[in-house]
């Protein structure tokens, strides 16, 4: 185990949630890290990075808490690509849309104590039961959500925090656990308690529809992550595996790898750019409390044949939140911080880590 080519090092630990922490999200534009919890709140942290030689030093500062007002657990959060809007998905079945009043000026990076209160601009209702996951499309024009009510909803984002429902997709036969958008196309993926993954696109003259169902997992699919280049989709499951699906045709995806090693459910995966060339780094974690980092690459295509996906475990960290389950792992999206990721655990903590190549 110690012969792995990289190690995982704790940068900091962010405390404050009174209950299980479910999810973390890095603001794509501004240096903010958000976390949500069963305590119904969202906590925001700002961070500064100082480049010192080879090693970036990162310092985190508590910024604010959004009490949210959700009646139940805030299960998931998502930043819009602009970084100005935060969406919260709650077990109370609603979605909150949060932003700072722009007229009051000042961004969050104004740390001079100016009021930068986050307000609920809109409440999206429609799900009948717990909302489990939420995601903005890469353009920021679409928002997807899913719920135990078996549906996936696609909302179009309009100006002035207005939303129009573009589709209610009733394809899964069970609880839908996760939604994820393709990194640059309008392809939506959803993962479910029914052990399947479904992929959807919009028919401009009609409605959103499911064009593919990916089967192979033997239990609940908890998590989804597209590769940064969009050619692959990874999924984490209660069957303790991570599967990787390759886009072999425009509308056809096939399983090309099964990553094993976790001893309990895989609750979260994240596919970041990582360091070096290749297809990036895939992080996975779950009920066994262990973080795995896989370097993903592909062999060069030979003689007109297709390339083959190669995965290699480069780092492993057990008991990442001591005895607790780890519910979320997310890579930092910022340039220069590709080796940094955050985790959220049942202990209510958020931890920030970095991967260091030996």
């Amino acid at each position: 185990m110690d012969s792995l080519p990289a190690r995982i090092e704790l940068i900091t630990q962010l405390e404050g949630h009174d209950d299980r922490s479910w999810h973390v999200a890095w603001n794509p534009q501004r240096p903010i890290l958000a976390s949500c919890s069963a305590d119904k709140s969202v906590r925001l942290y700002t961070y500064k990075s100082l480049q010192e030689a080879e090693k970036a030093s990162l310092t985190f500062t508590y910024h604010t808490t959004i009490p949210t007002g959700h009646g139940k657990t805030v299960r998931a959060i998502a930043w819009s690509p602009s970084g100005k809007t935060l969406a919260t998905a709650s077990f109370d079945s609603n979605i909150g849309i949060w932003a700072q009043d722009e007229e009051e000026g000042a961004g969050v990076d104004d740390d001079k104590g100016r009021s930068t209160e986050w307000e609920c601009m809109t409440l999206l209702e429609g799900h009948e039961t717990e909302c489990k996951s939420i995601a903005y499309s890469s353009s920021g024009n679409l928002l997807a959500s899913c719920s135990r009510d078996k549906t996936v909803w696609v909302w179009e984002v309009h100006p002035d925090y207005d939303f129009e429902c573009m589709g209610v997709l009733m394809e899964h036969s069970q609880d839908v656990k996760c939604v994820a958008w393709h990194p640059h196309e309008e392809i939506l993926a959803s993962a479910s308690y029914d052990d399947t993954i479904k992929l959807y696109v919009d028919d401009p003259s009609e409605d959103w529809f499911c064009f593919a169902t990916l089967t192979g997992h033997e239990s609940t699919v908890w998590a989804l992550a597209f590769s940064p280049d969009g050619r692959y989709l990874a999924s984490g499951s209660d069957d303790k595996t991570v599967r990787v699906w390759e886009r072999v045709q425009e509308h056809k995806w096939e399983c090309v790898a099964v990553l094993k090693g976790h001893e309990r459910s895989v609750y979260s995966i994240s596919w970041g750019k990582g360091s070096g060339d290749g297809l990036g780094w895939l992080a996975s974690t779950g009920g066994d409390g262990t973080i795995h980092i896989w370097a993903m690459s592909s062999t060069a295509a030979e003689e007109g044949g297709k390339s083959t996906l190669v995965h290699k475990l480069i780092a492993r960290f057990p008991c990442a939140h001591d005895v607790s389950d780890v519910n979320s792992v997310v890579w930092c999206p910022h340039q220069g911080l590709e080796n940094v990721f955050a985790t959220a655990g049942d202990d209510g903590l958020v931890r920030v880590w970095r991967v260091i190549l030996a």
Partner: protein
Amino acid sequence: MAFSGALTLTDLNDFITPSQACIKPVEQSNKVDVKDAGSAATQIQVDSSGSYYEVSANGSAPAASSTKLETAQISLNDCLACSGCITSAESVLITLQSHTEVLNVLSTNSDPSSPAHRVPVLSIAPQSLASLAASVSSSSAQPVGPSRILRRVEAFCKDVLGFSHVFDTTFARHIALLEHGREFLERRAGMGKLPMLASACPGWICYAEKTHPEMLPFISATKSPQQVMGTLVKEWMGAKWGRSPEQIYHVTVMPCYDKKLEASRQDFYNEAYATRDVDCVLTTGELELLMREKGWDLSMPVGGEEDAARRGAVGLTGSGTALPELIAHPGTSSGSYLQSLVSMCADASPGPSALSVRAVRTADYEEHTLADTGAGTVLLRGAKCYGFRNLQNVVRKVGRDAGVQVGRGAAGRMAAVRVRGRPRRGDGAAAEVDKGYDYVEVMACPGGCVNGGGQLKPAVSAQEDAEGYARDWAENGVKLNTDGGLPSSDARWGTRGWTKKVEEAYWHGLPTPPPSPGPETINGTSGNLSDDHQKIQWADELASRILQDLCQPNTSEAIRWNTTMDDEAEARRRRLFRTQYRAVESEVNGLAVKW
């Protein structure tokens, strides 16, 4: 963007579907016996008839030591009172609303001379006729229109089943549209909220009562055509025939399963006579099944069906109960509610007016704006909105424009959602555009009632024909129901192509504009045949006469539908032609919670 053939979207899946299993709690009545360890354990056995017995584990003879257990029963009324699922759809027990029930009642009916005899009456919706017409046409050289189908259904119901009377429901719809227009004017005058939302779709009503109670004040209180028909048959015709309401057995044929729920509502139960306005609702598919079981071939002509205009030409016939048949109401195949208001407002406008129609993304969401061409002022701003997705947006829009919070309270309301005013536009015209709707024709099914859940389905097969109608329907489509059960959920939704065929059949031979009229000047009735005009005139006059008969206004003068009568007569009108809605509270039985 073009999709490959394999990716062509053929299924309409934007329906409201039940999302939960039934959660109706059943009371516990048995007591617990405490036994010593080692005493006989009990088991539950199910016998061939489906009854449950509790037997001791070591008792081999069920008859000796078994106790029959009560079977849980769920009626449609339980469904209406429960918030467990969103709509019943067809999966809920419908034993009291089935075609076998109809056969039972008819076969056990007393002799017509007996006072216990119930006069069997059947009323069929025009969308059901269209569905039957489309299926018959798909396997015949010549298209067969709804009027011929009505003759054939009538022959079947009278000659084979023994019904005394067979009607279509378009005259009831005519009355519903008149009362609906009247209600709209009342709301415009400040008596009630705008926008008014259509109420003919029971799926939408059920959904609103269970999840959007804040929408109820906006929903039109006018009865649906089915329930107006119930009133006409039981109250008006019954009086003409010298029969009290319970002496009539009224069956309707509808394109929609949820119409069964509508008929079962407490509001449509007559306490005094212990009877419902509509005793039993069959879907189009169930009628078709009934015909097949009785060996009736709907593709065979019946005598006299050529005389399609016969009923239309009967004219006023004194005190008879003949109704004008298949009245064409221009607009949509889901009842033309919006168009009837557009026509009403255009007629009321002193100057010329123009209607503009804008499709929002698909034909299932259209905005209709009627403007005075001279002054440029907007006379009516309406929308047609079909399918679950569009319904969501209408609920959001209406809630926002009217300043009411949407969603059920139990969902855990956010304490501090910021109240944001709609942005002010600079010039008046733009602000005008931004105003809310006056009326929305809401239907839960994409494509509207022609695509109802109870309609006949084209065959679901992997044939190349994505349109789904060029096949031999008798060979394929009919077989969906051969097991006598309900079609599977996979098979029940039609294809778009098939829905289009039904839509065409609906308008077959009718001198009406297409269902979605383009920009054009409205000049009252848009039909161009005097026959049609005559039928409408007859319908108007008959409606007035019925109003007079049923409401008994305290006046000797002739009244029109829009006449305001004395208070007592108006109260009778409300009782007869309006209804009410109520929010359904959530269950709070912890053991019944699905998690």
